[in-house]
């Protein structure tokens, strides 16, 4: 019986050899993968060992880490609560992170390659200096005004968005999506509580987690007329050129007449382009659109930034950031490519399949204000090392595109200023500043209230653009665009006040 016993000994050795080989596979070959796996709770604990940096606006931290005596050493808190939620995002223990917290995660956590010198220094000094800080371009006053005015709007809208940018640089001055949410419970170390809160927000029918300023589109209504007007100005139409108008216009091939918002608007058979913009003359723009043709309008819209799918708002460079939905012009031609005057007429007044993000609206206004040059929007002013003295990645404003010439921009500016001076956007006016803009009222459906829009800009005494804004009130109903204009004026005034 000794021979089999010896063989059994060999078998046991083989079995143990398999165990040993397998342990080598796991603990040597796969070790790094397993050590840094998303499922590995140790990664998280390690992440919370180092103090995460602040996200700051105007010298105040709106995302910061406080020491706790729990298993995870630092608790992420958001003193701004819901006001900054859609910009900052959140950094939860068990859920996916979002916003700037996600974009600048490496830098905030201190694991970024840029901070390697700090980590090496720490190794020698034995310190834990923590992560770097992120400074945002937001204006505290503009953000606060936008949040409060939007949430206290006088037309009872429960959903909407506002965004303000500096036309000269593209720096975002304010970004609010309504309704918002408090990110603090999501960052709770009690993961059950965080999950429950997330599920509650996720199921809310008003979708508070959605960033309506960047990632949601709605029909832009008459604000889209600026794009059509730009196309017209480039095709031989001047501010004083008479264009066909009237109280009603029925495009050939369609029985659906297009009417104006009120009988008092451009009932005469012809108005100047300037008057059409000032009064927001639907019949005039519908016929102008049909005259220009689908290609010219779509092309102009594309030049303004419609159809761009890969824009994101974060750093001034191409690093990525908060995702931006593509604005669309939709089909304006008949199936098969023939002209479809009905579709073209409706699209020209920002209806039918035209969809726009509030950011796109603000970019149009900013382009007009900035002499035709559209700057790339960004949120991160600079990164500040853990020592708070070393600056990384200071923002370098870059032109995104040039949709219109300086002359066309000047004409559009004149007309938009007239809208605020004596037209539909009077409530946006700011004492001591030249404000221009365009209102928009878009049908949301057969039985639902209209969306109210306003896009606009403010110029100082020297004609330098200081702020461009877009306010959107979803299903605000009657008076929505006027209320949007009023809020836009308040936001720009706040941005100006802070900038002064």
């Amino acid at each position, binding site marked *: *019986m000794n021979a*089999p*016993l*010896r063989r059994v000994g060999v078998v*046991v050795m083989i*079995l143990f050899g*398999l165990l040993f080989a397998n342990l080598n596979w796991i603990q040597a070959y796969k070790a790094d993968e397993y*050590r840094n*796996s998303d499922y590995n709770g*140790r990664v998280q604990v390690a992440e919370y060992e180092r103090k995460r940096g602040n996200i700051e606006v105007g010298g105040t931290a709106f995302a910061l880490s406080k020491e706790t005596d729990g298993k995870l050493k630092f608790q992420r808190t958001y003193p701004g609560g819901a006001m900054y939620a859609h910009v900052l995002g959140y950094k939860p223990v068990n859920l996916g992170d979002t916003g700037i917290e996600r974009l600048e995660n490496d830098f905030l956590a201190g694991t970024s390659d840029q901070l390697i010198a700090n980590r090496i220094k720490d190794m020698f000094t034995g310190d834990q200096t923590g992560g770097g800080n992120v400074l945002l371009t937001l204006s505290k006053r503009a953000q606060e005004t936008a949040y409060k005015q939007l949430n206290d709007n006088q037309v009872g809208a429960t959903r909407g968005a506002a965004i303000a940018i500096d036309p000269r640089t593209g720096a975002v001055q304010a970004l609010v999506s309504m309704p918002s949410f408090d990110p603090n419970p999501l960052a709770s170390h009690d993961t059950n509580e965080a999950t429950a809160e997330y599920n509650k927000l996720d199921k809310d029918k008003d979708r508070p987690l959605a960033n309506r300023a960047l990632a949601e589109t709605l029909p832009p209504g008459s604000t889209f007329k600026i794009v059509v007007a730009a196309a017209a100005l480039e095709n031989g139409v001047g501010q004083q050129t008479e264009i066909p108008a009237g109280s009603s216009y029925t495009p050939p091939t369609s029985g659906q007449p297009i009417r104006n918002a009120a009988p008092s608007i451009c009932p005469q058979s012809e108005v100047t382009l300037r008057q059409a913009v000032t009064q927001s003359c639907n019949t005039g723009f519908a016929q102008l659109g049909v005259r220009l043709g689908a290609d010219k309008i779509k092309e102009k819209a594309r030049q303004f930034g419609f159809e761009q799918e890969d824009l994101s708002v974060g750093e001034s460079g191409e690093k990525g950031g908060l995702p931006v939905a593509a604005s669309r012009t939709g089909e304006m031609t008949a199936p098969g490519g023939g002209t479809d005057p009905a579709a073209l007429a409706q699209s020209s007044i920002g209806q039918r399949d035209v969809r726009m993000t509030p950011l796109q609206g603000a970019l149009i206004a900013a382009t007009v204000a900035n002499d035709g040059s559209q700057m790339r929007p960004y949120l991160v002013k600079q990164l500040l090392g853990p020592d708070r003295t070393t600056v990384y990645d200071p923002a370098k404003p870059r032109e995104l595109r040039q949709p219109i010439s300086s002359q066309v921009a000047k004409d559009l500016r004149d007309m938009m200023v007239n809208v605020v001076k004596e037209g539909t956007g009077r409530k946006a006016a700011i004492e001591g500043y030249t404000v221009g803009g365009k209102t928009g009222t878009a049908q949301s459906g057969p039985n639902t209230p209209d969306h109210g829009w306003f896009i606009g800009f403010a110029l100082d005494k020297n004609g330098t653009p200081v702020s461009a804004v877009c306010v959107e009130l979803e299903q605000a109903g009657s008076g929505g665009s006027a209320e949007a204009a009023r809020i836009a004026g308040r936001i720009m005034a706040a941005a100006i006040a802070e900038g002064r």
Partner: protein
Amino acid sequence: MTAAAVPAASPASTGEQPGVRLARSRRNAELSLLLLAMVLVAAYAATVEANVLDTVTTDFWIPAAALGLVFLGLHLVIRWLAPFADPALLPAVALLNGIGVGFLRRYDLAQATPEERETLAIFAGTGGRQLAWTLGAVVLAAALLAIMRDHRSLSRYAYTLGLAGIVLVMIPAVLPGRFSEVNGAKLWIIVPGLGQIQPGEFAKLALLAFFAYYLVRKREVLSLASRRVLGIDFPRGRDLGPVLVVWMISLLVLVFEKDLGTSLLYFGMFVVTLYIATERVSWLLIGLILFFGGAYLAYVLGSTVGGPFANFYDRAQIWLDPFAEPYDRGYQLVQGLLTLGTGGLFGAGPGGGQPTLLPEVQTDFIFAGIGEEIGLFGLSALLVIYLLIVERGLRAALAVRDSFGKLLAGGLAFTLGLQVFVIVGGISKLIPLTGQTTPFLSAGGSSLMANWLLIAVLLRVSDGARRPVTGGGGPAARPAGGPPEQLHGAPTEVIRP
């Protein structure tokens, strides 16, 4: 199979005694190795405290010393009752047991709040309980050594043990889940309010004693009467009966106790003792085919019929891709792998890991929990210690003069090795994970006691193997009851046709 015809006849002359030509007891070697093991355990405890508490308390050595005293007691019993026993067994097992106690205390520290840590009593928590279990298990082992002065006396109770083994296996299967099920495996007898024992751990020993006895009696028939197919000798159909019975039992265990590991353990144990007894490779082939065929059948039935087979199917699915449901069914295995991976080559150091993140770290996954802290190098050392124990057991089997002793020691040593393979292979995704204890490391009295009894038997057999034939080895030289008649008279001289 050249040795097939070599008889174990006139045992005294042909029984192999590798390296034991000199009848030296080597008890002093055992004592010094034991001291070394306890120094290692104390060093482990000190490192744990330094890492977890940032300071080494003045009491750090107490668990190691307490363990040392317990093992020293067993050492003295061996000196007295089994003076020629293998000197490497006790220190090797003592080291594993000590590391187990040390890790469980380390786990207690990790679970305690920072305030509690300072005052955590040495004998509190899982670690303290394990220390108490160790005392109980070692006393049991000493008692077995005292009662069983000659391993051959076991064969007199073979049928009783066999019956007891089957009953022990079956009890959890027939008990309602409330009294037998823990974490999906029906392996327990739970006495509400009192505690729980895992009868399978003891059944393993009883069944093996029965197998050894049965096979010694039947080995001629099983190894001779055969039919030759494809160059391999296959046994006659009617001789397959007992094997099929054991196969059925192990499949029943698989299905009703929802435990692949125990099933594999019983079946592997039986097939290997059968192979050792008959020296026929065909038995191994039959065994492997039956087992894998059965497992595959259970897998297929689990995926189609479900019912009692569903658990096995689930486990196989988890094994195939644990990361498919990392927070759900695959959670344990995934966390085990991540824990091992985090340990890497050198580990985080004793006390430096985060065992609280790993479910079942004090029982099934203790090897992974330890692995996070001592790394691949430390785990390899542990594997080598296990291998040492197994090979020492096989060595005792080689050296002992009677067939029953050979089968008993060989089977037990292999079973221990197989159990380590099943659980360590399970947590490292080499084979599907099943709830086995890691011998001498896992928290739990049943496993500890059963495995210490196993070691006591190995010690007894190795003592019998190494003892000078002419006796004079003190009181132990006189076997309590003398060898049973049937083994004495069994015709072991076999002539091959």
